[in-house]
């Protein structure tokens, strides 16, 4: 077991983890933060994307023990976030989700697009979304939702 100190959604905690426990399993099983979803567990589908030290990363291919000292934000921590509020509304309005399995990762990536690339056009949005797979809704609604938020924030 390895001792770690990690900040999760603003709360600093100490925990003992097995080295092989992924950050995703630590969040879901130990911390009961089940908003983070697991699809492929090898970095391809994006369902497990969370914020690590302010930037999106895959929680399935990082060990909790190698995130010692990091600040993690999961989807549960974005209730009061302005950009995420806009994205939630837009995903609803544009039919950006159906079963919702991919949605936590889609929102993490969508927030990254809106904050990092305020001038992104549809082509760029689609390129940036290429690391998030949705198996049921399709991408048209998701892309339109992100476009709408980018347009709204430009005023």
């Amino acid at each position: 077991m390895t001792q770690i100190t990690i900040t999760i959604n603003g709360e600093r905690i100490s925990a003992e983890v097995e080295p092989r426990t992924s950050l995703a399993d630590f969040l879901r099983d130990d911390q009961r933060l089940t908003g983070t979803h697991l699809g492929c567990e090898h970095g391809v589908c994006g369902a497990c994307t969370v914020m690590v030290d302010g930037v999106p990363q895959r929680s399935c291919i990082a060990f909790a023990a190698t995130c010692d000292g990091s600040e993690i934000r999961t989807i549960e921590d974005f209730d009061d976030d302005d950009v995420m509020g806009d994205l939630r509304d837009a995903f609803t309005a544009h039919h950006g989700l159906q079963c919702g399995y991919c949605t936590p990762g889609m929102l993490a990536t969508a927030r990254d697009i809106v904050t990092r690339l305020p001038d992104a056009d549809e082509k760029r949005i689609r390129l940036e979304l290429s690391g998030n797979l949705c198996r049921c809704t399709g991408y048209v609604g998701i892309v339109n939702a992100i476009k709408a938020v980018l347009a709204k924030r430009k005023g």
Partner: protein
Amino acid sequence: MKPAKFDLEKSTDLGEAISALGQADGFAKIVAGGQSLVPMMNLRLAQPDSLVDIRALHDLKRISLDNGQLYVGALTTHAMIEDGLVPDATQGMMQRVARQIAYRAVRNRGTIGGSVAHADPAADWPTALLALGAVAVIQGANAERTMPLGDFQIGAFTVALEPDEVILGFSIPELSADARWGYYKVCRKPGEFADSIGALVIDPARSFARLVLGATDGAPLLLPPSAADKIASSGADGFDIAAARAVIAEAGATFEEYETQIHGAALSRAVQGAFAA
């Protein structure tokens, strides 16, 4: 989809990391970003007995540009290069290469050192850095050494690295003002590993010209110098897929017909790209 058990050593000092690698019982591996190693461990394609986490080593984070040499520490992430946090000594080539690697969430954690050490034939840095004439800087138990990537990259998933050696970084010659480069990655979907990569760097002021084919079944293939020299002296005209296929044949490489065709296309597009306005 869960890795086998292993021990983890988190090192804060380079010497400590090297002795941990040297003294480990069984099969020890470095973990940097984990973006290649952890997927393989999750799939149980890799089952190391212990991992040495090097992410905290400051010696591997140095970035500098002096006297025409760019130095990029092994722990530099793809995203840092994409975002221009590394001085642009390659007229945008490294930034372009970084942008096309995987997805942003992977680029935020994956490192250039890990990419070269892993030596996946379909990865981007092994081909791009060979074309740029990069040299690996390596620390072992007793000494530091350097090795040009052409010698360092031996085969698929194989580099000339001892079990207790660590890549510190890469030294990359700065491109002169009139240098040109082209880089073309063939993949079915953005962010995927390549089916083929063509890379060309020509820098007449330094009499440097290299044409490299990546995503073969071995290490990146440095094509005969005569081909790159001819492009350097007479431009891209006529370097179509057939011409590129002839260069591949001249190098003695053989592939399936479909592979030869996409390799030819990647090389030809890289060369055309280097001369496009």
